[in-house]
């Protein structure tokens, strides 16, 4: 077993020890499904557009921060960070192991929502392109938020502080990617809103994938930003030595 796998296995187990993660998973599934069902019964369409339009906000504000908050903060509190960082392992391997454990836990939660497309298939004949695209986008977006979350968790020994700051950061990234938020900002300071929309907002890239237009540019966007935050996380932990 390589170092990353060893850390990954331990961290994943840790999620299943504590009840907080279960609680958030249930909230995530119930919140998303009920928001969607309201729309579903009202319009009667066999698609998941309503689901994927609220997903970025739910992920960014609640679910991902709740998963990522403990990744380093818990180790700071228990003192185990001193144990981990004196093991004969590269910091990058530890970061990656923790990150993947968070991702797997997130994907388990996301898999809980797969009941919706199954219901749609039974009741009607949905267009599978946008649904597959939507789930691919959700994986990408979740990966990006998780990287931000683990990076922020590396600075705080209090899980709640990590949760709130990650939530604010991801929420901001989602909101400036919604067309009308940058429009309002443009009204105050011309140019700032569209700058944020084009270069910071994350929703635009998600929507592209979700529409079923799988453009390599958007995938590169998510993967490279996630990689950057993971790298910064490893560097910030080594930097802490000084």
């Amino acid at each position, binding site marked *: 077993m390589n170092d990353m796998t060893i850390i990954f296995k331990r961290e994943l187990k840790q999620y299943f020890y504590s009840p907080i993660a279960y609680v958030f998973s249930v909230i995530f599934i119930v919140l998303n499904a009920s928001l969607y069902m309201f729309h579903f019964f009202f319009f009667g369409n066999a698609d998941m557009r309503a689901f994927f339009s609220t997903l970025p906000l739910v992920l960014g504000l609640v679910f991902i921060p709740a998963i990522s908050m403990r990744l380093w903060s818990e180790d700071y509190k228990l003192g185990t960070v*001193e*144990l981990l960082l004196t093991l004969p392992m590269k910091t990058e391997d530890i970061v990656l192991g923790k990150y993947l454990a968070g991702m797997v836990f997130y994907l388990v939660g996301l898999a809980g929502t797969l009941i919706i497309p199954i219901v749609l298939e039974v009741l009607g004949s949905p267009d599978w392109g946008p649904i597959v695209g939507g789930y691919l986008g959700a994986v990408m977006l979740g990966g990006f938020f998780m990287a931000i979350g683990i990076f922020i968790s590396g600075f705080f020994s209090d899980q709640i502080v990590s949760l709130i700051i990650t939530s604010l950061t991801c929420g901001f990234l989602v909101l400036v990617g919604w067309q009308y938020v940058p429009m309002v900002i443009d009204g105050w300071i011309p140019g700032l809103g569209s700058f944020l929309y084009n270069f910071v907002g994350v929703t635009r890239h998600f929507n592209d994938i979700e529409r079923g237009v799988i453009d390599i540019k958007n995938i590169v966007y998510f993967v490279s930003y996630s990689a950057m935050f993971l790298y910064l996380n490893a560097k910030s932990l080594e930097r802490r030595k000084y």
Partner: protein
Amino acid sequence: MIELKNVCKNYGVTRALADVSFSVEKGEIVGFVGPNGAGKSTTMKIITTYTAPSSGTCSVGGHDVMEDPLAVRQMIGYLPETVPLYYDMLVHEYLEFIGQARHLNGSFKKRYDWVVEATGLGPVLRRKIGVLSKGYKQRTCLAQALIHDPEVLILDEPTSGLDPLQIIGIRNLIRDLAHEKTIILSTHILPEVSSVADRILVVNNGSLVADGSFDKLIQQVTERSSVYVAVKAAKKDFQSAVKSIKGVEDIEFDDNTPRGTVGGHIFYASGKDILPDLNQVIREQNWDVVDFSQERLSLEESFIRLTRSSGQEGGAA
């Protein structure tokens, strides 16, 4: 084996270590003594690569802690002061995790059995770490430091939270390991250091104030030693007879002796041995001895003197 050269460490504006240099040979047991906040833990964190020195160099087994941290970590077993444990894991799961993380693979089973035996964890292997008593937590963490049979052991207060019987157990364990391993341990409990360590390093205010064996340290802080003698004799006779002994500097009489006996603290320069002569005098005079005791500074007292005097120097500078 371990070598620190001019190591300084600043936390912001606070200076935690100021120009600390020492080296530890292979197989040596070094006790690290000093008041809280003296820099013991900081020094240990630098040796284990957890923190970096602000200036100066530190190497373990020839590997620099900054340039080759992985090689250093491979050699070291570290028991931090904070006792890092995952409270939700079972004891055996925790040790298995450490075994994997230390790449033990084939030799794990053997080492695991040895470490469980040595630290007495047998009865709690299937318990959650969070519910263990402080002593068992401490021992679980000690097992973690020993499991990969490291060449160098860094133990930050290894016996805190243990009961006297367990302390003796850990002390014996450390003594058993002594010949093959290089050990640095820090503690507040001074008799513990004197009974285990070959050499004592005293740190205060971030610098090294004394380095040497226990006896050497005692000599360093006391210019003169004393012996307390009480005999059945007249005060005048006693005074003149004792004064005649070569090396005796002063006598301080004890006023609380019973009628007919005389007692006093006899002071002499450290390093001189007046006891044979004193014994001779007592025999010649045919005195009945009521009390005869060598007065040694306890380690606690010498510790206080060492740290106090260095504090004054620091203040004056």
